[in-house]
């Protein structure tokens, strides 16, 4: 080696904006910029030392609800976690279930000093976070007696199991099983992820749309046969992140050649590194863009009339149902301005709404019409608006109008296909209570449940609720406050202990929702117990991971299965609940059951040895069977066809009691919606939306400092909006909506459309709820207003108006 020049190396040139600039930045000198962590933290961390040799490698899994279910291989020594590896079996270029940055940071959560260690009972007001330690026996006794009392006094409909998705495992989420043995509970329908589309899409695609699976969508892998991919609010690099997730399929698809266009209010990470791929759009206005594209298809004679006449209902007068004939109620009438609002949906009409130039809309329409196999797919962001029921259906109009459905390389406009899954969970039993509410309606049901009706509030199974919710189970979920909506309103309603009388929270750390618990129980994590789960719904393969205990749970933290078993014993239901089986025995039984049904899975003994089973799946084309033979494979709509005009929705709308500013339409229209386009004011002059952020899955992992460091909670704001407010990159800002105020750092970036700010969802709410209630954690749900959407009665919470100021 020749290092004779080493001492004569010239000082590097300072290049502004380059890496070299960073080391010289800051008046305090570079030494102060780097590694300035407290000594005691360094002592604990053993910083930079080579990792110790493990004496055991244990399979486990990251089980939060990102859609993936990535593999972890814990390297342990003397029963303590050292570090994690991920799936490194098989061909690295093919199917490796590689965990993302979150899974690789899981040790920090498992070993967090903030883990809940003991059962606790609330000692302050709800939300204050004041608790006193009690014994397991006391805790379970109190829960059992309060549950029995509630059922006796108010009936089973007064007990609610809140939505939560922080843990997925075959022996997890067993509270419904216990409650079904106790006479049932008030159920919820839909979920916080896909609420509006679950309500809207079945009217077009059929009742079984809500079952998911691969019937209605193509897999991302099918897009290899496409020449043009158009994504609406769909960023696999941010929402489908693991190494076996759709983002990897997407990357391989990109490299196979198709052009990709991303319609989004942010230049998202799926378009990182690309040029000319981004069509910036004002959030919540996707349906207006679709209208103008449809207009171009029509005026340029690009509509596939034969397809529409054969496979669809309601494009034009020719296929309108009898009840709506001759009234200019067709989709074409809406687009061309001969029906409904009598406005022609030209690109010039859409430009000021969407902020997309009319010529760009024309070229987009032309590109789609001329593509041989356009693959149109929406994410779940566009539908999570106050107008999301319409938006989700509207996006599906694009492939429908040009007959590009059910053919190689195409997609239906829905999100990519889910695998069906090969292992099932513990049976939940039957719920004798047939009443259900939208998952977003629980707060109304606490506040005034006895006034809620089917027509006004979407109550199902009965005309009206008999009682409000008096008892809430909340397991591994944060949708009491953080992930619900309008945290300040939730806080107010839960202060009144005559409404909801009892809240039980079971979790691993003190989430914001856990602060509202009357009894708070410490859960063991998956690293601390035997575990099994399949692959995720965002991973297009078949798989199972069989995990083992890598480390003891801290303090008195207990496995959920054991918590519920012990509680069942107090309630005299233990034998029925456990069927005499331990958690390990349930896992073995459920594996063997799945393996028997499948026929091609490893034996139980082999599985215990190998830890992971994975099998590639062939690409699928959504609605292929229907396209091939619509007579033999009708959809589960009343007509058996794709219903652009839904007569049943028109009829349902007649029964609904809607607010004055709400509409429910039989065809997918652009409706600005509550706090949507046109709703900004002098007081709240900016639109605001949220997005899924790499540092968290919803609020899971939100307490991990190492992740907070590399994924800073920052508001994206366009330079134009920042300059007029004298805001610079990194400045602390106050964001205020009609519902509340957060404090958050600014990220001044050209990657967001002017007039809208974007805030990563899931940050942990951090406010003095007995004081100013200003949220220093930057949680988006401090800003969202509690206003269930018109049709779903769901969380259309991406529609927000705000003001931003330097704080």
């Amino acid at each position, binding site marked *: 080696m020749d290092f004779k020049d080493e001492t004569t190396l010239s000082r590097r040139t300072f290049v502004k904006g380059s890496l070299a600039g960073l080391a010289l930045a800051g008046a305090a000198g570079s030494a102060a910029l780097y590694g300035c962590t407290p000594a005691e933290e360094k002592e604990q961390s053993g910083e930079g030392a080579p990792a110790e040799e493990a004496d055991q490698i244990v399979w486990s899994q990251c089980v939060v609800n990102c859609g993936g279910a990535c593999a972890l291989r814990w390297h342990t020594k003397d029963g303590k976690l050292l570090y994690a590896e991920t799936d490194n079996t098989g061909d690295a270029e093919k199917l490796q279930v590689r965990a993302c940055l979150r899974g690789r940071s899981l040790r920090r959560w498992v070993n967090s000093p903030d883990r809940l260690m003991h059962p606790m009972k609330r000692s302050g007001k709800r939300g204050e976070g004041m608790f006193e330690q009690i014994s397991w026996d006391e805790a379970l006794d109190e829960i059992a007696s309060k549950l029995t009392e509630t059922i006796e006094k108010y009936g089973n409909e007064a007990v609610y199991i809140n939505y939560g998705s922080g843990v997925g495992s075959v022996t997890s989420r067993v509270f419904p099983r216990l409650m079904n043995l106790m006479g049932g509970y008030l159920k919820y329908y839909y979920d916080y992820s896909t609420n509006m589309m679950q309500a809207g899409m079945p009217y077009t695609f059929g009742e079984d749309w809500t079952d998911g699976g691969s019937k209605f969508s193509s897999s991302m892998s099918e897009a290899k046969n496409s020449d043009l991919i158009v994504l609406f609010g769909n960023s696999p690099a941010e929402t489908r992140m693991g190494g076996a997730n759709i983002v990897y399929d997407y990357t391989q698809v990109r490299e196979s050649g198709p052009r990709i266009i991303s319609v989004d209010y942010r230049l998202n990470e799926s378009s990182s590194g690309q040029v000319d791929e981004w069509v910036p759009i004002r959030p919540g206005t996707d349906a207006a863009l679709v209208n103008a594209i449809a207009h171009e298809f029509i005026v340029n004679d690009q509509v596939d009339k034969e397809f529409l006449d054969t496979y669809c209902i309601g494009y034009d007068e020719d296929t309108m149902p009898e009840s709506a004939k001759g009234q200019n109620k067709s989709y074409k009438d809406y687009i061309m301005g001969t029906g409904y609002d009598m406005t022609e949906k030209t690109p010039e009409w859409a430009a000021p709404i969407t902020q997309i130039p009319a010529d760009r809309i024309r070229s987009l329409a032309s590109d789609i019409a001329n593509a041989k196999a356009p693959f149109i797919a929406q994410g779940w962001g566009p539908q999570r608006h106050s107008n999301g029921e319409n938006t989700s259906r509207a996006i599906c109009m694009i492939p429908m109008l040009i007959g590009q459905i059910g053919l190689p390389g195409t997609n239906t406009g829905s999100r990519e296909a889910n695998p069906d899954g090969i292992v099932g969970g513990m049976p939940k039993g039957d719920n004798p209570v047939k009443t259900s509410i939208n998952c977003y309606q629980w707060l109304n049901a606490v506040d005034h449940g006895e006034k809620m009706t089917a027509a006004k509030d979407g109550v199902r199974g009965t005309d009206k609720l008999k009682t409000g919710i008096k008892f809430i189970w909340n397991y591994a979920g944060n949708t009491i406050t953080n992930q619900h909506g309008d945290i300040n309103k939730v806080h107010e309603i839960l202060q009144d202990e005559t409404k909801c009388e009892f809240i039980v929270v079971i979790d691993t750390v003190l989430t914001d929702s856990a602060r509202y618990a009357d009894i708070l129980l410490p859960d063991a994590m998956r690293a601390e117990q035997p575990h099994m789960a399949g692959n995720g719904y965002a991973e297009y393969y078949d798989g199972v991971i069989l995990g083992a205990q890598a480390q003891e749970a801290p303090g008195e933290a207990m496995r959920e299965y054991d918590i519920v078993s012990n509680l069942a014993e107090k309630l005299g239901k233990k034998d029925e609940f456990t069927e005499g089986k331990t958690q390990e025995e349930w896992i073995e039984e459920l594996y063997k059951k799945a393996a028997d049904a499948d026929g091609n899975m490893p034996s139980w003994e082999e599985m215990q040895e190998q830890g992971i089973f994975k099998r590639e799946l062939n690409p699928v084309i959504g609605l292929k069977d229907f396209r091939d033979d619509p007579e033999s494979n009708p959809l589960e709509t009343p007509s058996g066809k794709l219903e652009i005009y839904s007569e049943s929705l028109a009829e349902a709308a007649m029964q609904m009691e809607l607010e004055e500013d709400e509409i429910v339409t039989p065809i997918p229209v652009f409706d600005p919606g509550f706090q949507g386009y046109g709703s900004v004011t002098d007081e709240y002059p900016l639109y605001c939306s949220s997005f899924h952020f790499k540092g968290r899955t919803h609020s899971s992992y939100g307490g991990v400092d190492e992740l907070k460091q590399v994924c*800073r909670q920052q508001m994206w704001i366009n330079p134009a909006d920042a300059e007029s407010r004298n805001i610079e990159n990194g400045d602390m800002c106050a964001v205020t909506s009609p519902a509340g105020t957060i404090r958050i750092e600014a990220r001044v970036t050209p990657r967001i459309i002017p007039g809208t700010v974007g805030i990563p969802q899931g940050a942990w709410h951090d406010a003095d709820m007995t004081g100013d209630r200003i949220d220093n954690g930057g949680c988006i749900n401090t800003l969202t207003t509690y206003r269930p959407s018109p049709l779903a009665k769901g969380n259309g919470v991406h529609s927000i108006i705000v003001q931003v100021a330097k704080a």
Partner: protein
Amino acid sequence: MTQYGFYFDSSRCTGCKTCEMACKDYKDLSQTVAFRKVYDYEGGTWTAADDGSYTTDAYAYHVSLACNHCDMPACMGACPSGAIDKDQKTGIVRIHDDKCTASGACVEACPYNVPILDTEKGYAVKCDLCYDRVTNGQNPICVEACPLRALEFGEIEDLRAKYGDTAAIAPMPSPDETQPNIAIKACDAAKEPGDSTGSIANEMEVTGTPAA
């Protein structure tokens, strides 16, 4: 002599930072210390039209960088106590903490923002290309971590033969100075070193400014 290095495919990188966090887990690094960092580089402007619509040429891409184990390591050249050497068998540049006097000279000298001075411990730390793993026939932890398979490890001659000689895109400096052992696939949006149309968008993160 064998010279090991990294390959980085910037067209695949989504800026997810799994590489960085896998390293931090394996090396047990605390909140503000990272041996591999991901730089968000972005730029572009917006133009408003009279009808309220906009056009933009905004772009963004990421550069994931650990130590480049340079042929001419500026850190080594600057170290006043001879604590930094370049392994003859692997070309890996390492800091020997027993010899380090915490002068901070390496921190200032490195054009890649790599060494980090731990003033409490009294020495500087940085990526050692997972010396223990690679000399044991394994990949560095970051390479095995990448969900997009955008990182590769190997002999730099092989990586350059396979992927070409590009060794810098903005915001990296010109490779002339220290001759870094990295091969890069430039994404479509990538800018040349010295580019002035964009900037590093995550400066607080990569300079270790603690997040609240």
